[in-house]
């Protein structure tokens, strides 16, 4: 019994040390990549190409999801508010839900599944096929030439994707609430305008999506760079990207919400 308990403690300790060691390596990786930003900022074409790959190519899923999430919010919100005779507040409910929470969080989760997994697989495959080693031997630093533009593109793209998600969600809610269920059009927009604050709501939402952009892209790139150079290694790294990014987004969302909206 004691031996089993000690064995469990040993495994827990080993897992903890391994997790801390990976976190340390990930942090060194992140700092080193950030060091490549000044060099990469002078080569705009590299960043634009990556914004297209991680941002523009994620648009379809973000647009479709934004519209549907907004429509669901409109429907659920109307069904609840109408019982209290407050259906005119639908615009406020939809906008605040999207701008404060659903926009940044759902976009980050979708981004982790679409762009994050693609980044991990791409970098992992580049490592497996020795492309990163070849760059090193050509005196080109792959962390600055390959990783830095992707990280920067992720940081730029996430707030834009979250904004698009929220805007389309507001229109989705408008379509269901106003066009289908008969909520007053003027009330929908004026309630929204009166209650959604530029700094408290919109700016905080943008900050959230900015933080999520950094974290998800960092995890995706590190998992790809740190992968075992085998097909199984890439498969595991891609899975870890989606799982770890999603958990990090949800955990950070709570922390950021507590800091931003705690009264």
């Amino acid at each position: 019994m004691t031996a089993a308990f000690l064995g469990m403690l040993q495994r827990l300790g080993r897992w903890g040390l391994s997790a801390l060691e990976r976190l340390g390596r990930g942090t060194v990786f992140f700092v080193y990549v950030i060091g490549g930003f000044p060099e990469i900022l002078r080569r705009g074409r590299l960043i634009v190409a990556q914004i297209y790959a991680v941002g523009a190519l994620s648009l379809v899923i973000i647009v479709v999801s934004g519209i549907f999430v907004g429509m669901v919010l409109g429907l659920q919100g109307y069904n609840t508010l109408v019982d209290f005779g407050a259906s005119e507040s639908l615009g406020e409910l939809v906008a605040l839900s999207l701008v404060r929470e659903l926009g940044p969080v759902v976009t980050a989760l979708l981004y982790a599944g679409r762009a994050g997994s693609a980044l991990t697989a791409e970098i992992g495959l580049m490592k497996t096929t020795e492309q990163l080693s070849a760059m090193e031997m050509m005196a080109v630093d792959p962390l600055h030439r390959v990783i830095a533009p992707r990280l920067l593109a992720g940081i730029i793209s996430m707030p834009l994707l979250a904004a698009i998600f929220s805007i389309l969600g507001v229109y989705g809610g408008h379509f269901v609430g106003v066009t289908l269920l008969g909520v007053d059009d003027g009330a929908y927009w004026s309630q929204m305008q009166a209650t959604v604050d530029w700094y408290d709501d919109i700016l905080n939402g943008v900050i959230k999506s900015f933080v999520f952009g950094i974290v998800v892209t960092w995890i995706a790139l590190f998992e790809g760079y740190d992968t075992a150079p085998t097909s199984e290694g890439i498969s595991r790294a891609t899975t870890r990207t989606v799982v770890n990014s999603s958990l990090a987004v949800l955990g950070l969302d709570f922390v950021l919400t507590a800091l931003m909206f705690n009264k």
Partner: protein
Amino acid sequence: MGGYRRISAPDQPRSARMQNNNKNSSEPLVRIRGLIFKRGQRAIFDNVDIDIRRGGITAIMGPSGCGKTTLLRLIGGQLKPLSGSVRVDGIEVPRLSRRALMNLRKRMGMLFQSGALLTDLNVFENVAFPLREHTPLPEAVIRDLVLMKLEAVGLRGARGLMAAQLSGGMARRVALARAIALEPMMIMYDEPFTGQDPISMGVLVRLIKSLNEALGITSVIVSHDIQETVSIADYVYILSAGKIVGQGTPAELAGTNSQWVRQFMQALSDGPVRFHYPAPSITEDLQL
């Protein structure tokens, strides 16, 4: 700018390099002394000395897993030895700062076993990659240089193809064109003949030989394709179990009495390198 000076005045560095790579020069381009490198408890190199002569073709041969590729990575500074000295052109590689190492690598080329072409770029852009990264040359000059390098490997007509559209042999020739783009002082070939059909193999053998002679480049070939490698090598090292078990010119090795060398050169299935992995006796295992 160092790269720019090399490329913008190709005659000067080439003549200087030819002088550096003079085969009569007594100082080897790569000088390895007392090299010890381990993976876990296993010694990949145990007190190994190797000299790579300037302007020559030196072959590093040995059975799979004996550390041939590791040796190239140690010379290129991608790995650091546990102890010992790895000097390239008089520079102690393991002690270099990252910046100095990058500068040294601009003077080295490496051909990876898989070619390691950048898969998001076409053939032209792959060869242009080191030129774009290290030189401020105008586009017209880069175009001319790339086409000349591709002409040298016979693939000028394939400039528009993507890496995925190339055969294994073509990919290695493109990688070779990329490796010589900055006109390096040495090229390291990692298993250049593995998995090639006879025609591709013949093409690669001739290319390595002709580039070595035409450009005065020092070549290091890591391979276990005996016939092809020995046919062009000036000097051969045979590695096994972390040691050098034989060395000399191909003619010297052909006449050696060493059991190790004979087993390897004649592709014998049993010898110092045992056919059977260590195991209890068959009678014991089958409980007879």
